[in-house]
């Protein structure tokens, strides 16, 4: 059943593309229907997944042979890592359609590409075969370009090109690793099945170069410093729904790949001695992740463009995910997974506010030209403040337990990193408050008058905003709703990984 998520999205993409472009409202409703079906399937999967058993479930069992010559199988399934992300994709998918209700130009193409991207993302999360995963990954790249280049703003061609080049560069590295796996294995028993690969004990020499290829390849998409600059530029250039998907879901593709493939298949590389440094890659990634957090926050602090602030804040928040992944303990992993979900929702909400509720109405994103919006648009201000508070990890919102668990995990693994991370968290508070104050508080600047006559917030926008905010509170107040399956998956993952990683690294 769950595998239908991407079939439905592809189907929807085709159906929407076939409708005439002037049937605007039909196109929108159809897109909403298909996106909602995807979400419904994801939620059904959440209910049907058996947490006690764990492992891959709800897929097509052992799958069917797809390219037998290479040992590629069409195998799908979901576990505690991917299921929350499938739900996240569904949520962002639906709300993205709602926030795109105002798109008038080439509506059918927009939603066709949008659903195609959605399908590709679902596919990545559901693939149990590495080859299949990479195929879906590449499928997801193409629509991004057109979405940005056609419907975007602010240097859209540049942003689109940059983003796609980065994605392909990452994809190339992943392909390199994939080829390596193919050659490393015995040709008779060649397989890309993730479960089987995970059970394979690759030689440490192979791991030492395959791990960086995969981690970097996927890490680029996760905004790993210093390969992050596509993210702010791309997010800013993208239309609202696309920036929601990019920051909310596509960046998670990267971190998901880092976890599932790079760390999942080559955990030994984390502890390996490279250049005479034991645990070289683990240290490097920790430093880079801390850099993400602190650097992203610092740069967000001095941005003038509202959307760039959110873009860099995404870079900063993805640092928590990457940091959590390399802690290799239960808290760090579960925290990273929760942070992926949480940041997906938060980034979706914030980009929606900036792109749709603010920019489309005020026609400026310069923080100096905004100001005083709180009085003119109280709903917008409230939603942004809720999102901002969640972004700074306030208790009661989803970000709190996620960041807390990552902090605990990194505290256990490498306590010193809490210093830059702590500074980063405080800077996060500073830039979030700065943005809130510049955009919504104080007096309205002369340019905007008193913002009277802004178009009112429409019903789809209200519904989508309330939906996203409700999820923030739900996960914040009762994190167990997702954590139980994340914990289970992390536990199984660690049990397996610990056999290959030196004990001192995986200390509880």
């Amino acid at each position, binding site marked *: 059943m769950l595998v239908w998520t991407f079939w439905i999205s592809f189907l929807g993409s085709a159906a929407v593309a076939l409708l005439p472009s002037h049937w605007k409202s039909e196109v929108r409703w159809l897109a909403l229907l298909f996106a909602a079906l995807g979400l419904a399937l994801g939620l059904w999967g959440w209910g049907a997944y058996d947490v006690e058993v764990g492992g891959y479930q709800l897929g097509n069992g052992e799958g069917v042979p797809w390219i037998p010559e290479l040992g590629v199988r069409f195998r799908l399934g979901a576990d505690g890592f991917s299921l929350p992300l499938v739900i996240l994709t569904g949520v962002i998918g639906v709300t993205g359609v709602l926030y795109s209700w105002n798109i008038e130009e080439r509506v059918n193409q927009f939603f066709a590409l949008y659903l195609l991207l959605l399908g590709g993302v679902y596919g990545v999360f559901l693939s149990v075969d590495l080859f299949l995963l990479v195929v879906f990954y590449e499928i997801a790249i193409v629509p991004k370009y057109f979405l940005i280049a056609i419907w975007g703003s602010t240097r859209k061609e540049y942003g689109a090109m940059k983003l796609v080049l980065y994605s392909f560069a990452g994809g190339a590295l992943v392909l390199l690793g994939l080829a390596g796996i193919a050659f490393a294995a015995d040709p008779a028993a060649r397989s890309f099945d993730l479960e089987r690969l995970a059970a394979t004990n690759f030689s440490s020499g192979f791991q030492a170069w395959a791990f960086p290829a995969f981690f970097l390849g996927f890490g680029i998409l996760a905004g790993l410093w*210093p390969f992050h600059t596509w993210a702010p530029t791309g997010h800013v250039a993208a239309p609202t729904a696309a920036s929601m998907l990019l920051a909310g879901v596509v960046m998670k593709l990267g971190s998901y790949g880092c976890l599932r493939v790079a760390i999942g298949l080559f955990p030994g590389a984390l502890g390996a001695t490279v250049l005479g440094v034991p645990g070289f890659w683990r240290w490097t990634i920790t430093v880079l992740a801390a850099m993400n957090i602190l650097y992203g926050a610092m*740069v967000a*602090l001095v941005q003038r463009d509202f959307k760039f602030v959110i873009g860099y804040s995404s870079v900063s928040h993805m640092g928590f995910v990457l940091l959590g992944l390399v802690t290799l303990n239960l*808290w760090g992993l579960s925290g990273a997974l929760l942070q992926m979900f949480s940041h997906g929702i938060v980034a979706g909400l914030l980009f929606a506010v900036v792109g749709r509720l603010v920019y489309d109405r005020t026609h400026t994103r310069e923080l100096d030209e905004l100001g005083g919006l709180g009085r003119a648009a109280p709903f917008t201000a409230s939603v942004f403040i809720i999102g901002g508070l969640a972004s700074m990890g306030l208790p009661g919102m989803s970000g709190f337990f996620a960041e807390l668990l990552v902090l605990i995990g990194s505290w*256990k693994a490498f306590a010193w990193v809490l210093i830059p991370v*702590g500074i980063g968290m405080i*800077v996060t508070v*500073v830039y979030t*408050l700065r943005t809130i104050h510049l955009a919504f508080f104080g007096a309205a600047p002369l340019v905007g008058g008193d913002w009277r006559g802004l178009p009112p917030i429409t019903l789809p926008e209200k519904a989508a905003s309330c939906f996203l905010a409700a999820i923030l509170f739900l996960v914040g107040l009762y994190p167990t709703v997702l954590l139980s399956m994340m914990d289970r998956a992390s536990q199984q993952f660690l049990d397996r990984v610990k056999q290959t990683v030196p004990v001192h690294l995986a200390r509880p």
Partner: protein
Amino acid sequence: MGHAFLLLLPLTAFAVGGLFLRRRHALAATVSTASALASAAWATWLAWAKADPAAGAVWLDAGGFTVVFRLEWDALARLMAAVVTWVGAAIHVYSWGYMRGDPGTGRFFAFLSLFMFSMLGIVLAGNLVMMYVFWELVGLSSYLLIGFWHERASAADAGKKAFIVNKLGDFGFLLGILVVWTVLGTVDFLDLQAAAPTFRDRLAASPLGFLPLGAVALLLFCGAVGKSAQFPLHVWLPDAMEGPTPVSALIHAATMVAAGVYMLCRLFFLFALSPVALEAIAWTGGLTALLAALWTVAQDDIKRVLAYSTLSQLGYMVMAVGLASPHAAMFHLSTHAAFKALLFLGAGSVIVALHHEQDLWRMGGLWNRMRWTSVAFLVGMLALCGVPFFAGAASKDGILLVALRENRALFALGAFTALLTSLYMGRLFVAAFLGAPRGEAAARATENGWVMKGPLAVLALFSFAFAWRGGWAHDCLATLVGAPMEHAPAVVHAFFILIPLCGLLGAWALYREKPTDALGQLFPGLRRALASKFLFDEFYLWLVRGVQERFAAFLRGVDQWGVDGLGVRGVSLAAFCLGNVLRCFHSGSLQFYGFLLGLATAALLIFGVLR
């Protein structure tokens, strides 16, 4: 049973008010006030019945990091809950009068309920993580209420400052919680208390063995430094006076700022393990008390006088904890909540009557025009100064007695601060209420309605009630510590009576009938020095402007020119150049192709021959 209602009542009021009643001001105020009164009544009943709360439910469980949602209802929580709910209820009622006609009244009451919810959460929290959660939420509601009039830039900035400074302290607190959890494996207060005696050994044996015990205690103390505005994080509290006066009274005088002290008392069994940490805490408190009292003497804004005085009193409480006497701290916390709220509400009453005039030197003569407020304010002032038979005397003298026994230097410091306290309060009273009116508004001021007078009366009553020796307050204390207040020789008591007397008489002599600050006329240099608040704000501003923002700008430069410029554009430029170079070989000219062919053949031949 039913302790959760204490949290649910204000939470419901917040949710209903925030979602549905933002434009229905009267209804929002009714709902919020009703919830505050109901929780006050309910807390009193629960305290009376000494009902035990229900067992907790697991809230979060990840790999041994278990957080149980458990409510605590021991004597400490009972006392604090009574203080918070009753002062809160009085201030809710008062706010009806103060906020009348404000277009944001609905929002105001919703936020007030959010605050009550978070504050009661801190009081009832059964473990460190719950306390931290509500700790942050209190910070949020304080931010929202300080910046309530967010169109005013100064208010919005003050809210931001408070939030960020608090966050600094909170991070230290969080680190402390992490250490405690790592070492003892639990965050629950009861388990922690049981395991506390082994803390030193287990810390030494853990991977964190390099941390001295005192450092762990001081990390936890960071939380109190932020929340209770202790030196050096005291800078946010005076600015917080930008919020509406009821907020100043409730949050920034009576309850939230006292949360730090409450936390110190709650975790006293941990702090008690380290004499060094206690010493540091005591001196931090003492220093805050002294510095704030010094600065108060040069303040001209009626609310700022009270704000700095709050700082100073919080310093006393923290000092008491540091002197290993949490019960004295809690006693002073309770009495201070009553009389400082009273003073703020009195000030608020004056401010409303004077149409938001806050400058002391434009008031005067209010004793004749606003008798009710004046009497209430006088009661609060006498309580604060520690005049016998008023609440503050018993509690402040309690702290000074402890200091006399434990640490003579701190006693001297505390006694001098007490003298300053009487001096600046006398100055405030003389300037605002006595003499002739010095401003248009002061000359026409009239008393406010009952909705504002009533809470004043109730709080004034409380400012006496606590002083009854052997009365209810002492019962509370006895349950807290199992020990009665100490008895001091008569000469010490005489000294304690002398201090406020000297201060008040001195103020009367110095400031009587003066149109401006007499201190400034007599010693302009001294006044300037005190009014500068020793440049702490300027120093922090320099840190933000000079260091943080420059560093951020530098990093943006790195991002733009380094990573994106040199790195990304560099790569694309390299590809571009390479393409251009290769394009030369693709010129379409046959002669050039022939030349290249010849060159290649020659090269191959040469290589072949050489091999």
